[in-house]
């Protein structure tokens, strides 16, 4: 009997060994695989267990956290949600994150290892770090001026500081309240469906993620190509351009809205926005030169991050000469985001140098200690300083004598370019009104700001649509805010 009892005890011992081996399998060997299963809610619970870090504008948080008391505890709140939605994006327990909330999620949620000196210690002790704060480059006054200027009309504004690339305003209109998506539950689902199904697409970030035909504002790029290539050396010399201009290889004749465009010198052609002159310049410069210049300004770059991804602006590299002629005046397949056109204006204002745009000034931990500075990528020369000087002359001329008069500011040197872009099948859609501009103090040396404005449904009367009429006043308000000028003339 004793022998049998010992055997039974040995058998029990085997059961114990089996349990221990299996426990080690589940808790150590397979633990990571099980933990990575998206159905395990622990990741989400840990993520929302503490307040999320804040996004700050001018040092003041525009986001907050609300204790929901639920299992996913903290929900995102927004102050001035619609105003800053194109900057912050949303942070939803149901639908994830977008824009800055997504790009800086590691910092805001506390997961980023840069928030601690000893990440391995935090992992060992299972410390849940508090989220860090993201300080944006946005200027609240300019943001509000741009938002008020659009006044709910479909459109967008992007403003950058030419010298540094700091993005000062980023507005998309109509906007939405991101806070309605923060939590989880039926109300959030309904809000999500409503926002996604809305005809005016309030969740579309028109400043970063929508491209428009830039229309006549693209003539800045064409003029830059002409000046850089030496095709035009004197902006006051006649250009030998017919009016109307028959597109090469077709019978299509391109006309002008302005008068006196035949053989007009570059200065006049730019001020009056003569399509014929720029279309012909484009074909003369050739596809290679035009595409290279556009690329140097930032077109066809699908890697631009601010740190939210920016939709690439496009200038085709394969087309015939007639298409090239149209592309040179910002039509055909040429398409640009408002941010891209603000970059074009910034290059002109900044002596031909492009400072890559960025939206995050610095990142701090919960205690305010700086974790990382903004990107500060080096500026690159897009056009020579002399060309930039000539382009500045052309653009100031537009504001002083041409179609951009409504952007003028007292005591400020303002350069601008209007645009009215045709689009839709056979150009039947409502044209887009564009205005790009930059400004600096009359006695100042550094340019203060470069702005791009696009208004989609500019006015009911199609004949009235113009960059100068609808978009320029918005740009003016934004520039005035940048220069701390009052809204008056």
């Amino acid at each position, binding site marked *: 009997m004793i022998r049998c*009892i010992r055997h039974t005890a040995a058998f*029990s011992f085997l*059961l114990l060994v*089996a*349990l221990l081996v299996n426990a080690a399998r589940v808790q*150590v060997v397979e633990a990571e695989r099980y*933990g990575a299963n998206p159905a395990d809610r622990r990741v989400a619970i840990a993520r929302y267990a503490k307040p999320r870090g804040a996004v700050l504008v001018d040092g003041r948080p525009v986001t907050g956290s609300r204790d929901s008391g639920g299992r996913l505890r903290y929900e995102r709140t927004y102050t001035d949600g619609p105003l800053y939605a194109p900057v912050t994006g949303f942070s939803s327990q149901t639908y994830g994150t977008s824009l800055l909330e997504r790009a800086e999620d590691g910092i805001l949620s506390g997961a980023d290892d840069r928030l601690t000196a000893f990440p391995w210690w935090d992992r060992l002790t*299972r410390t849940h770090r508090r989220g860090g704060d993201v300080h944006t480059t946005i200027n609240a006054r300019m943001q509000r001026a741009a938002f008020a200027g659009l006044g709910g009309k479909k459109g967008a504004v992007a403003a950058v500081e030419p010298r540094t690339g700091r993005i000062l305003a980023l507005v998309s209109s109509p906007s939405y309240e991101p806070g309605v998506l923060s939590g989880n539950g039926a109300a959030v689902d309904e809000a999500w469906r409503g926002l996604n199904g809305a005809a005016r697409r309030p969740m579309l970030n028109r400043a970063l993620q929508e491209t428009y035909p830039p229309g006549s504002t693209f003539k800045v790029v064409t003029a830059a190509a002409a000046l850089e290539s030496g095709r035009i050396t004197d902006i006051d010399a006649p250009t030998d351009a017919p009016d109307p201009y028959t597109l090469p290889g077709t019978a299509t004749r391109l006309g002008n809205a302005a008068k006196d465009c035949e053989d007009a010198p570059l200065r006049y052609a730019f001020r009056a926005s003569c399509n014929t002159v720029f279309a012909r310049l484009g074909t003369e410069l050739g596809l290679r030169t035009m595409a290279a210049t556009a690329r140097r300004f930032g077109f066809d770059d699908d890697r631009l991050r601010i740190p939210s991804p920016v939709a690439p602006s496009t200038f085709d590299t394969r087309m015939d000469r007639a298409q090239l002629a149209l592309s040179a005046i910002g039509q055909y397949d040429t398409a640009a985001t408002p941010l891209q056109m603000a970059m074009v204006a910034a290059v002109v204002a900044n002596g031909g140098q492009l400072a890559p745009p960025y939206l995050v000034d610095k990142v701090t931990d919960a205690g305010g200690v700086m974790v990382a500075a903004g990107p500060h990528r080096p500026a690159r020369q897009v056009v020579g300083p002399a060309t930039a000087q000539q382009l500045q002359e052309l653009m100031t001329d537009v504001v002083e004598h041409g179609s951009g008069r409504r952007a003028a500011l007292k005591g400020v040197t303002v350069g601008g370019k209007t645009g009215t872009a045709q689009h839709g099948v056979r150009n039947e859609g409502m044209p887009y009104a564009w205005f790009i501009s930059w400004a600096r103090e009359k006695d100042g040396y550094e340019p203060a700001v470069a702005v791009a404005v696009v208004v989609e449904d500019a006015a009911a009367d199609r004949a009235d649509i113009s960059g100068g009429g609808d978009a320029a006043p918005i740009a003016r308000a934004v520039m005035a805010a940048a220069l701390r000028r009052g809204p008056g003339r």
Partner: protein
Amino acid sequence: MTATAGAPATARPADTPPPLPLLPRRRGVELALLVGAVLISVCGYAVVGLATHHALPGGAVRYGAGLGGLALLAHLAVRLRAPYADPLLLPTAVLLNGLGLVLIFRLDLETPGDHAAPTQLMWSTVGVMLFIAVVLLLGDHRVLQRYAYVCAALALLLMAAPILFPAVNGAKIWVRAAGFSIQPGEFAKVLITVFFAAYLAANHTALAHVGRRVVGLQLPAGRVLGPIVAIWLISVAVLVLERDLGTSLLFFGVFVVLLYVATGRTGWIAVGLLLAVVGAAAVGTLEPHVHGRVEDWQHPFAGIAEGRGPGQLAQSLFAFAAGGMLGTGLGQGHSALIGFAMKSDFILATFGEELGLAGLTALFLLYALLVARGYRAALGLDDPFGSLLGVGLAVLPALQVFVIAGGVMGLIPLTGMAMPFLAQGGSSVVTNWIIIALLVRLSDRARSPRPATPAPAHRRRPAPPPTAPAQGAGR
């Protein structure tokens, strides 16, 4: 855990000295271990409060006093009536029960409407009282042998009782009366073990006699084997009818093991394993409920892939995985995601998540200690009934822990059962305290000075060796 071998400071001057040379009784060791067990439990209780509310739980003192008082009463009873009892049994049981109360209290925080810890404490009190009663009233375990058939009858009665009551969560294992609900099957398992041990002890010489020979196996005479097989079959059949598959598995295991120990024939193990495999395969394919469990075991994450979300087993595995080596800390896990049965069948998942592999290993070793002390008592006794009862009472928790822990950790298909002492459930706690009481009684006899007790006539005979020679001769 070297108390049995090491600690010398046990002979208490206050005790009346036994007539023979002083044998270490080690009651002082037991008391010290009990203090440790109560302290660990109270600390766990405090840690849960600090981790969840950053404050000591209101009832910490009452809880500590309650558990400590129960432990002290039980200790006094042992000191009085079982002075030679194994000093590890009672502290291990108190620690397991205390940890169970901590875990249930911790899970109560996740279910605002349902407070199970006070009820569990109440049942634990009942259990300790019964423990004391058994230790005080049962002077000699051999008395039980006389009531073998009473035990069997009572067990069958208890098991049959739930048939009259409605099923709860798919199993007809409950008896509800006057606001209380008990699981009579829990008590039945002790009674049936007593019966098995008594019957096999009384007949174990007869069992060695060769009866018929079936497929190469020497069966004992049907006259001897008949009654026990009949009762065993009836009980398993009743349990299968009630869908209490865990308990029927337990009965099966205890029966096979005791038959093996009583007869010394390895063949019984082979037959038992064969029957178990055939039975499990049959039930696993034919019974839809069990079939689902088997499917779940094979593919714990199938529900996620099909969009139904994680099932309970998947949630349990997530909880264990989240615990890792060291656990999240008491009160800081999310095993509440398991939902239904998180305080009973799945309570081990909370243990694994919040105390990690380290805590789980310690827990398994505590159970192993309990089981090992049961075998130790069985080995120390020289009456067959006592030895068989000791083995039976050791095998019961060993199998039960293996089946439920293996089930919730994906080692074997899940079978609903209570983790001894740990899981919510009054019947289970009370039964386990009775098991501890019987083990204390057995170990007291095993360790007490021999000449002090009068011996029944057959006691001195060495375990008759019918096994090896008989088998050898038969072949």
